[in-house]
């Protein structure tokens, strides 16, 4: 390159072309997709090289500059057919990706390879191009890049990884090794025979024209013949007209390309919208609803099974002798006292002679109160049970009397102007609610004077129980017109003055 810049050596330029033409042609081929356009682009690249040789010579990696230029020039070539190409590419990539195979893989990579290379950092791209496109060894790469072999190799690895990520984002899943193999095998194709020679000539002429134009001297003009002068006039006119025509032509072509590009862009935007709008609903329509439901149920069941398994495992690990939790303690207390109530009821059931009909009216709260204290352990002679049964009978009869007889008595007295009933049956119409006849028959009306203990009550008559179950333990309720009295466990409580037991 230096030889060409310093000496304008055509041989040096031809050598440059010979060395890089395959690489440039391959890049152009990938970008434009047809040999004719690729040749045009390749020629254009080397013309640019010839014209910008001095500047390009400062570039450390010529292949990087060549690739960049090839990509820029190729862009012009593909604009006009972008809409058609995009649709064709989509179909081709879809089919070939699904079909698999190395050629299909390369064809899916190729349209994006140069865009991917363009996204790489310059240092990484140079390293990659040297390694796989120019097939340089690690040592040669290091020399060219002015770095160590290891650093050069690292740049190559990093570039490959970036490329892999780039393709992955575009839905082309490929490993690093596969990518390297695909690039090595396909990245560089042989350019058509004769292309290098053509380029060398035309590009060298183009480059020389720029430099040589200043070398025309006035002396030569003066010495020209008339014919030569005429020719010069024509050349001057042509020189004036040609750039103008070229410019006009380029603008016109650019407008056409721009219009085509706009149409392509609009079409692709529509394509993108239709992809999102119609393709996914299409899937939903194609996949039976039952399969979707099954899939969701499978997921749900898997989660539930995992949860159940850990819960069972957790339950299996719980120590049975661990302290009771609050909930367990409360439940145990309920169970313990419920058991106690059942025990007492069972005792009554087993000893019917100990029952009184009013027990059926005893509330559950009262049953609980009765069994608050458990003295069975120390009840060697059944005293505890005997007393407990007497207490239960007393509670039941007092509750029955206070809830039924007492309100009925007050209504009766009011209705009968203070007259006390002579028989308990007279209270029946005044009871707040119907009661069991057997319970009512437990009660009688006695003269207040028949009691052998002080009741402290006013009036001549009282309502009381007819007889105890256990005279030594049972309490007696005396209910007068204006109050009541309870005689607890008094042997005299059940002895009547008129009716000695």
């Amino acid at each position, binding site marked *: 390159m230096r030889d060409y810049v310093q000496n304008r050596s055509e041989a040096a330029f031809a050598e440059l072309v010979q060395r890089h033409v395959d690489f440039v042609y391959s890049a152009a081929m990938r970008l434009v997709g047809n040999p004719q356009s690729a040749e045009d682009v390749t020629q254009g690249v080397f013309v640019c090289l010839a014209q910008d040789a001095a500047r390009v010579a400062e570039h450390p990696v010529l292949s990087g500059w060549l690739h960049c230029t090839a990509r820029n020039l190729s862009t012009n070539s593909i604009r006009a057919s972008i809409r058609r190409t995009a649709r064709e*590419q989509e179909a081709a990539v879809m089919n070939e990706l699904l079909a698999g195979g190395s050629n299909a893989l390369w064809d899916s990579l190729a349209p994006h390879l140069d865009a991917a290379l363009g996204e790489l950092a310059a240092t990484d791209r140079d390293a990659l191009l040297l390694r796989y496109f120019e097939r340089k060894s690690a040592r040669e790469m290091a020399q060219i890049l002015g770095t160590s072999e290891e650093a050069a190799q690292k740049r190559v690895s990093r570039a490959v990884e970036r490329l892999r990520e780039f393709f992955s984002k575009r839905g082309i899943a490929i490993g690093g090794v596969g990518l390297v193999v695909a690039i090595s095998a396909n990245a560089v194709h042989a350019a058509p025979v004769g292309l290098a020679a053509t380029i060398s000539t035309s590009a060298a002429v183009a480059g020389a024209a720029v430099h040589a134009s200043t070398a025309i001297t006035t002396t030569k003009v003066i010495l020209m013949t008339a014919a030569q002068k005429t020719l010069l006039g024509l050349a001057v006119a042509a020189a004036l007209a040609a750039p103008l025509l070229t410019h006009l032509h380029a603008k016109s072509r650019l407008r056409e390309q721009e219009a085509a590009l706009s149409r392509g862009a609009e079409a692709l935007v529509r394509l993108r919208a239709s992809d999102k709008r119609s393709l996914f609903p299409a899937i939903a329509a194609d*996949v039976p609803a039952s399969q979707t439901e099954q899939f969701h149920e499978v997921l749900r069941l898997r989660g539930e099974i995992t949860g159940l398994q850990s819960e069972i495992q957790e339950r299996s690990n719980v120590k*049975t002798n661990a302290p*009771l939790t609050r909930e367990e303690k409360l439940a*145990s207390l309920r169970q313990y006292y419920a058991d106690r109530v059942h025990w007492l009821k069972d005792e009554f059931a087993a000893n019917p002679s100990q029952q009184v009909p009013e027990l059926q009216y005893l509330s559950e709260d009262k049953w609980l109160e009765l069994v608050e204290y458990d003295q069975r352990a120390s009840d060697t002679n059944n005293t505890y049970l005997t007393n407990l049964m007497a207490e239960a009978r007393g509670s039941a009869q007092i509750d029955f009397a206070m809830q039924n007889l007492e309100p009925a008595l007050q209504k009766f007295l009011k209705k009968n102007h203070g007259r006390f009933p002579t028989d308990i049956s007279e209270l029946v119409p005044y009871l707040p609610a119907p009661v069991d006849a057997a319970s009512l028959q437990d009660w009688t009306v006695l003269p207040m004077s028949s009691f052998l203990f002080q009741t402290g009550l006013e009036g001549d008559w009282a309502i009381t129980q007819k007889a105890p179950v256990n005279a030594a333990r049972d309490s007696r309720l005396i209910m007068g017109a204006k109050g009541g009295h309870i005689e607890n466990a008094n042997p005299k409580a059940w002895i009547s003055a008129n009716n000695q037991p």
Partner: protein
Amino acid sequence: MKRSTFVLLVAFAFAGIAASLLLQRHGAAAIREDQNSLRLQQDEIERVTAESHLLSSGVAETEQVANARGTDYAAELGRLRAEAAALRAQEVQLSNQQWSIRLSAGVSLLSVGNRNLTEHNRTIESTMAGGPRPGSGKLNDARSFAAALRKYAREHEGQFPSTLDQVTAYLPQPLTNNAPGWLNAPVSGTNDFEIVYQGSTNELGNIPARRVALLRERQPWLTPDGKWARAYGFVDGAAEIDVSDDNFQSWDEVHVVPPAANP
């Protein structure tokens, strides 16, 4: 042709070439700008194309997966349903068994506690809510605090407070000369009590309120005859002083409900 004419012609030619070159350069700059703009559009189109490919690939893949897995799901579903049903049944059974075991253990502990209670504990003084005012300062404090806690709970939907500081406003006022005998006397202010029941009266259904301790003295104390004693207040408003020779272990087993574990 005169020399001056020729020079003029050459000058014109050079001027024409220069103007033409200037025009071309200007045009080239404009074209470069256009090219840059077009290149940006080109990049966008490439991006959209790639996205389109991605979507299409996704569509194809989803279709393939959905079609391939349809049959497998049916088979797997049957297996998973059966497994889940078996595990559910096992979990319920295990849960019931465990609850039953724990409940039996709790009832058994209460039975043992009640037997030990008879053996190791004795109530030396007691009073009921609304009963005659107790003479003992500790018993009076226990009953007054219990009454204040109950009053607080009545005004807070059954919920007892967590600290005694919360019931300051509910404690009895100083007694007047003609105060009825059942009225609670003010507490001594020693603050030797602690709440042992955290929760609500609503949780105590089917449990005798007389058998659930609401508060107790922080530390037991020695009676003149050398027994350890402690004053307790109950959910029903009663209070009692008990002596124990098992460090109140069996007493607490029967009467104290532990607080809920921290989540």
